[in-house]
């Protein structure tokens, strides 16, 4: 464990600091609209809860939080690109 901590701590500390900076940046840019209203932010907040937990499979849980859990195909193409998180309010 000590070796993994030694090898990977600083790069992951950096990642947490970057997330904090991103969240602060979002708040500054909110223009009266809460970032929490965005489906991506809602997913990110759920993921952050898992990060702070003792779940032995945090990565598996977080991958599923961001994923579309359905298997029903879209009838029409809505966008060429993925958004990064599933939007449960989007029409199939």
């Amino acid at each position: 464990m000590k070796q993994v901590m030694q090898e990977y701590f600083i790069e992951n500390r950096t990642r947490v600091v970057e997330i904090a900076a991103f969240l602060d940046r979002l708040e500054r840019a909110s223009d009266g609209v809460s970032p929490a209203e965005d489906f991506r932010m809602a997913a990110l907040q759920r993921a952050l809860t898992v990060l702070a937990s003792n779940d032995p499979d945090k990565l598996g849980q977080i991958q599923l939080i961001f994923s579309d859990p359905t298997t029903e195909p879209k009838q029409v193409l809505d966008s060429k690109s993925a958004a990064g998180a599933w939007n449960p309010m989007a029409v199939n």
Partner: protein
Amino acid sequence: MNYIEMHGHMVSRTTDDYNEMAMAGCVAISEPAFWAGWDRKSADAFEGYFRQLTEFEPTRAAQVGIRHMTWLCLNPKESEDRELTAEVLRRIPKFLNGPNVLGIGEIGMNRVTVNEIAGFNDHVKLALEYRQMILIHTPHLEDKYKGTRVTIENLLKHPGLDPKKVLIDHAEEHTIGLILENGFYTGLTLYPNTKVSPARAADIVEKYGPERITISSACDWGPSVPKAVPHFMLEMRRRGHSESLIKKVVFDNPLEFLLQSGKFELPRLGIHAAAGVAHK
């Protein structure tokens, strides 16, 4: 250490990238047909692209001693036009006997639409009819889990399909188990922002073992690193893994998969084309 780049979109890369990859140990590249970043408007445009993949890129790669192989298809991002899909599929067979054509790919899903699924199944049928191997793209980000499940569900409906002659690419932690347990080969693609990092790829190999897992950069016109595979090799060494384990996933597994095409060879290394043909 020699390695095989299993997924490189070299049409988007420079000759300097070929040089750098060769100097880093790359001996072969498998290049799937993909989306150019904009939709091609005619089957003629696809033919031009297929000529680039079968004529120009092998020549460019050979200049630095890299063996270039390719896969042909209409990418899922362009499959909403069913008429265009049918016409491109009609033209693909005349390229299949080309010396560097490995099979059909990268087919698959993007946003998992009805038309994408129809186009995917059309390609699988074509591959089976012409006894071709298949390389499959799985979707990005939130669509990956769904797209991988729908892909496998559809593949399993095709009688005669040998899962060992199919590679389902861009696997991540939440999809690799499903791919491997159904007998397919898989690929971990190393991207700076999306998909998998070298460290996570090493985690996956540690967790699942090396069987049927390949590693690639999937370098293209977006943010990507043509020498990502050596980054993975370095990560594995950093953790104290053996050279034989590293070679297994960056060279032996890709070689084992590609030799099934009956075309892949590396004469410079004494590796000659096997007699195997896909989907007998």
